[in-house]
Structure formats: C-alpha cells, structure tokens
C-alpha cells in the first residue's frame, strides 16, 4: 500500500553513520541523566553511597506512570555531585536479576506492566501527541516506522534490521498481541534487499499492514503517518508509535525477559571523526564517549538530530533513556569575504540560488552558523512548500505578530509536527518552528483552558 504524503525535504549533511556497530570500553563512571526529552526521574529511590545491582530501580518518573530508571551496572551510587544526574561509581558488568515470572503472563495488562518494569516503555509514544502512553490502557493500533530520516537522530533502520531481523519479526508478532486492531509498518519504498525481504515477510501476516513511504524527511514522523493513514486522534483511543528499536525492545523484554540497560546509538554529523553506531550502557559519560570520536574544533553535541534534537551541555552528561543518537555539529570557525556573491558550489540550498545545483549529489559539512541576518518575512513561500502538515508557517507568523491567537488556532497550527523544516529553509532566518510551538502553547493556556470541557457541558 502506498499513501499520499506532501512536503518534506532531505537535508544532505556529511557524517552519515556507517553500518558498523562498535562497543566502546566499559566506562569508569556512569552518569544517568534524570531528565530526558519527555521523562523526569524526579523520585529518587536510592541513597548516596548505596550499593546497587544491575537492573535495580534507581528512580521513577511519578508524573509518567512510574516509569523506572534502571541501574545498568552493579556499583555505588553517588548523588548530588553531578547536578541532575545519578552517578554510579566503579560500575561492573553483572548478569541482571531476572524478575520472577508473573502468574498471568498471557494477559495484555501484565505484558504492558513488564514493558514498564523492564525499561522498554520509553520507546513508545502516542502518535498524535508524542506523549508517553498510559500503561493501564490497551493500545488500539500501532504505527511502526522502520527508518529514521532526520539526520542523524538515531540508528539506521537497515543497521538494526540487518543485525536482528528475526528478533524484529518476533517483536512485531508480540506487538500485534498487545494491540487491539492493526499494526501499520512504514517501510521505505526502496528496492533494497532488506526492504524487499521485510515487505515479503509482512505481506502474509494478519493484522499487520506494510505501508511504503518515500525516503524523504519527515515522512517517518508518527503524526504525519497517522494523518496519511487516516488514523485520526480520538478521545479514549490510544495509538502507539514506535521505531525499529522499540520493536526490538519489546522482543527483549517479553521474550528473554531481560531489562533494557543498553542502547544502540548512532554518532554522526560533520564533526564526528568516524560516524558509526555504538552499543553503550545507559549513563555512558558523553565526554568519555566523544574522546577521540570528534574532530578537533569547537563542537555542538546534539542529543538527537539537527532538526529536533537538543544540545547537550551541563544538563546532560551521559546517555539518557531516550537518547537514540548523537549529532556532532561544528561551530563555524571562519567567515567568508563577500559570501553572498560566491558561486556557492559548496553549499546545498532548498532554493536553486547556488551553483551547487549543477553538481551531482553530494553532502555538505553543515555548521551551527545562522548563515544570514534576521529579516522580516518576504513571503517567498518556501516554508509552505516544505511543510509536511500542509499548514502555512508564514501565515501563522503574520498572525503571531498580531497576537491573533484565535485565528492561529483556526489556521491549523495544531497540525504542526515540529519537524523544523520551515525554520531551516527560511531565507529571513525566522524561527518559525518555535513560533508555532509557542503559539500552540499559548492557545492551550489562554483559549482552551477558558472553554468548558465538553463533558462538563453535558452534565450542566
């Protein structure tokens, strides 16, 4: 099945992670961030100096259904030394304790509980809101995105599948047992051997539907896929979104009943000395991990990809539970004289304003440079063309300038998937992505909070 998708654009950047998977040396210290993209492990259950075993619960996120932070190694706890992190000194590899088998292992409820307890839950998200799904509620449907198209937000789908194709299929079968209706699997519509094999294997399976998607960012985004598949958000319906590593996590948690204490991450970007994949325990310190793996110049290390990731810094010193990849982006070191009249053979643009359009396909070493001055919107329309949600960022920008929240709400700003392409292509260097997110936040706060809830009205 092929679905209709609009917008999107591929940013061609050097430093695509190679297919190789390296296992770095065991670290001398683990630094587990208490905060990740969605989770906050604010309820710490261990004490300073306490000895912990591999797989012990260190902290839980009380706001997100008690999702646990598990200890990836044996070792001694050190709190309050590294702000916002739980440190484990002299970590040692040990076989994790296998939790006792539940009596009612067949039930969906206990399987979902196992996913939470074994650390597989952070791999799941609600396709429409990106929120952590409620483990108490069964999933109605699920969307699996095999590829990851943001450069270079995480491990390549072909690397994950190439390593553990059978585990993936087993995980998919387990996922079907957890979902009431259909599991959609988005497979890139390419001719590769692996994609062909996956499509053939999936075609016969009941309740699994393979969907071909173009290899164009952000067509792997769950809410873009959900909208194209006609899976509309509905009160009381839970639809999971997960990636290839999420399916593998389900397999590990439910087949071998092992906690998920390691991550397969990608390290890439123009600043990476050798872009590869790495298998590391949670909490692996970033400075130890990056030593020798980045080229020597000021760098920005991003947890995730260049379009959606967050710069690591003092707030994140180690691999977190939601870390899927690190992108190393150099800071600009030199400025060109008369950059705007140069041929531009070395720069790739969404527009065709540089001579690079005459060159065969190549990748560009991008930096963190803004590459231009902030200017008022000139109405070029590029943001509208790349938008995968079909909304008009320039129009919302204009309305935001007038503080017209009601009109922004009416122009479909809630459909924004925060892919970041509008900000990327804008020649006036407007931060459209952030403007739309801020407007949506203000709408939630000011407009919708004032409205009475639908159910309340019925009661009154």
């Amino acid at each position, binding site marked *: 099945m092929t679905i209709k998708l609009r917008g999107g654009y591929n940013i061609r950047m050097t430093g695509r992670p190679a297919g190789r998977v390296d296992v770095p040396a065991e670290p001398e210290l683990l630094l587990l961030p208490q905060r990740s993209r969605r989770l906050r492990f604010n309820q710490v259950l261990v004490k300073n100096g306490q000895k912990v075993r591999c797989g012990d619960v260190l902290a839980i996120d009380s706001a997100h259904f008690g999702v646990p932070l598990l200890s990836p190694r044996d070792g001694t706890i050190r709190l309050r030394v590294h702000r916002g992190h739980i440190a484990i000194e002299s970590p040692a590899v040990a076989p994790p304790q296998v939790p006792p088998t539940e009596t009612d292992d067949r039930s969906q409820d206990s399987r979902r509980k196992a996913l939470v307890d074994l650390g597989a839950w952070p791999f799941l998200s609600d396709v429409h809101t990106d929120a952590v799904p409620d483990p108490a509620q069964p999933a109605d449907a699920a969307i699996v995105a095999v590829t990851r198209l943001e450069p270079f937000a995480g491990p390549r789908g072909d690397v994950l599948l190439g390593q553990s194709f059978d585990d993936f299929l087993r995980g998919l079968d387990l996922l079907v047992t957890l979902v009431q209706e259909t599991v959609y699997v988005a497979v890139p519509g390419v001719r590769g051997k692996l994609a062909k094999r996956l499509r053939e294997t999936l075609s016969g399976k009941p309740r699994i539907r393979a969907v071909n998607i173009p290899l164009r960012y952000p067509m792997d985004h769950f809410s873009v896929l959900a909208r194209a598949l006609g899976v509309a958000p509905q009160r009381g319906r839970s639809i999971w979104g997960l990636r290839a590593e999420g399916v593998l996590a389900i397999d590990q948690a439910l087949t071998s009943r092992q906690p998920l204490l390691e991550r397969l991450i990608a390290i890439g970007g123009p600043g990476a000395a050798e872009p590869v994949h790495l298998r590391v325990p949670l909490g692996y310190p970033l400075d130890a991990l990056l030593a020798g793996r980045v080229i020597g110049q000021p760098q920005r290390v991003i947890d995730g990809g260049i379009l959606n990731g967050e710069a690591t810094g003092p707030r994140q010193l180690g691999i977190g539970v939601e870390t899927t990849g690190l992108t190393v982006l150099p800071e600009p070191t030199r400025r060109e004289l008369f950059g705007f009249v140069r041929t531009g053979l070395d720069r790739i643009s969404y527009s065709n304003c540089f001579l690079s359009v005459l060159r065969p396909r190549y990748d560009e070493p991008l930096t963190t440079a803004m*590459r231009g001055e902030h200017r008022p919107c000139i109405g070029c329309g590029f943001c509208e063309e790349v938008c995968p949600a079909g909304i008009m960022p320039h129009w919302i920008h204009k309305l935001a300038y007038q503080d017209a929240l009601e009109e922004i709400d009416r122009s479909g700003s809630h459909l924004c998937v925060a892919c970041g392409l509008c900000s*990327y292509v804008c020649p006036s260097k407007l931060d459209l992505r952030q403007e739309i997110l801020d407007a949506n936040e203000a709408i939630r706060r000011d407009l919708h909070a004032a409205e009475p809830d639908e159910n309340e009205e019925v009661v009154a």
Partner: protein
Amino acid sequence: MKLLEMLFDRTRPWFEKDGRLHLLRPLAQGAEAFFFGSAEQTHAAPHARDPLDSKRFMMMVIIALTPALLASIYFFGLRVLVMMAVSYIAGGIVEVAFAIIRKKDIHEGFFVTGFLFPLVVPPTTPLWVVAVGVVFGVLVGKEVFGGTGRNLFNPVLVGRAFLAVAYPAQVASGFVIPGAWPWGRLTEYVTPGSVDALSGATPLALGRQGEFANWLDMFLGNISGSAGETSALAILLGGLFLCMTRVANYRTVAGILGAVFVFSSLLHVTDPARFGPPLWHLFAGGLFLGAFFMATDPVTSPATNTGKWVYGMLIGALVVLIRSFSGWVEGVMFAILLGNLASPLIDEIFVTMRVRRLQREG
C-alpha cells in the same frame, strides 16, 4: 581579509548599546553583513540552517536584471549608468536614514529597488526627476508601511506612478530612438538636449494610431521605451533564470503573460485594425519587465500559490483593458499596483479555503 575581520571585531563595541557611535549601528552592521555576513549561531533546533539568506535572494534579482541593463546601455547609451548611480544615492540616503531612526538593520531589498528604478523611466529623464521618483517610491511605497517585508505596493512602481502623475512632461519627452546595428549607442551619452536622438514614440503610442511595430524589433529591444524595458529577449533571459532559482514564482509570470495573450487575442479577432495582435501586446512596453521582475516581488504578491495564479491573471487582464480602453497607452504599472492592492484579498480567500480543507482533514 584577516585585517578587515579584525577591524570589525575591534570596532564592534563602539556601536553596541552603550557605545559612542550607537546611533550609526545600522551602518556598521550593514557594512559587516556586506563583507562577511552574519556571525550569529543557531541557539536551538533546528541547529543548522539553509545557506540562502536575504542578501543572496536579492543578489539573484540583480544578476537576473543584468542582461536588461546591458541591453539598455546598448540601445540608449551610457546615461542609464548615471541614472542608476543617482537612484542608488538618493534612495540609499532615505533607506539609511530610516534604518538609523528605527534602530533597525539596513535591508537588502533596497538594492533591487535602486537597480530597477532607472530601468523603468525613459532614458533621458532629468536626473533630479529620477531622484525625486526613487525617494518618493522608497519613502511612501515602503518606509511608511514599516520597511521591507511590510509594504503593500511595489516601491519602484509607486515612484514611477508618482512621476507619471506629477511630472508628465519631463517623463513623456524623455524617450530615445534606439541605437542602430552594430554598435548601438554603446559609447554615447544621450542627454535631454541632444535633439536628434529624442522623441522616439513608443510602439504603444504608435499603436493608438493603428501602427503596430514589427514584433522582431520589439523582441530584440530595437524600439523606443523606458530604459530597461524594451528588450524582451534580455528580460526573458534574466527572468527565466530568476524563475529557475525559485526567487520569482513562475505562477505569477505565467498568469500574467497567459492572460495578456488570451485577452488580447480575443480583442484582436474582433477588430484587428484597432486592437494590436497578441505578440505585439506581449513584447510592447513594460510587460515583460513588470511580469518577471515587479509582479513577482514576493512581498507585494499573494503568499499562496493558487493566489499567485489569480493575481497574475488579474494583472494580465488589467494590462489589456487599460491599454485598449483608457487614456493611458501603457497599463502595466497601474495593473501591477492594482494587483498589489488586491493581493491581501486574494490571500484571504485562498487561505480561508485552505483552512477549511485543513479543518475537514482534522
């Protein structure tokens, strides 16, 4: 180059908030942006950005206008370069003054305005008239609306319209008979005083008397007219380049030229003696220059792609109407200004339709 970079780094504090020369910050910022571009870095996602900036965007327009400028020099002599210098200096003073008053950066849009303005006036327009026109265009057409990006009308055409209304005699008498093969007027400097070259009636004016010029001369530019508008060939070269770089939207151009072709064909069929043939309409006057370089100004045209088609067709229809049925022989300037006026309305209609569709989709 290192030295220049050091100079900017060293002097930057002078122009900062508490510096001695804070008032002149727009000038210093403009100079630095001109030489080196922004030193700014992204602070959040997306962490990298596309290389296109507004300087490059405007640069593309100037590159695309170069063939038209060269054609103008060939047919009408070197005076156009002097007019351009006057246009840049007079308009530049207004632009810089407003940047300093507003404490904002100097915007690159002016480089296009200053380049385009001398091309839309007759080749021997008195220099003070050029200066008055460009100052009026920048001031009333752009700055009073809040500067580049906020203007409703194309500043070049506002200035040109002002001249047409306020100084009709100076503008109408400035036309020049084009230079002849092979050297044209490449080495000449035609002044308002050189009588032999003057008073070449434009094809549109001759058309009123039922005299339709040869379309090949019109295509090459071997006709009388405003300095940069006569050579359809040169404008086409630059205009196609501009559409290919996506700086000009082809929808607007196709809408205008298509509508002019269709409407003028219809009129020509009804009365060939009175209404010019479609090709004559296409190559006459400022239609090509207006369609490729002025109607496509993204700020003053509709933002939606469907809106651009409608906007283009509206302008095309107006051009034929004004040329055929009004007291003015040329209608492109007023047609585009009217199109500018309609473009917020056109946007409103198509955005509303788009929003309804989005709401249906969920």
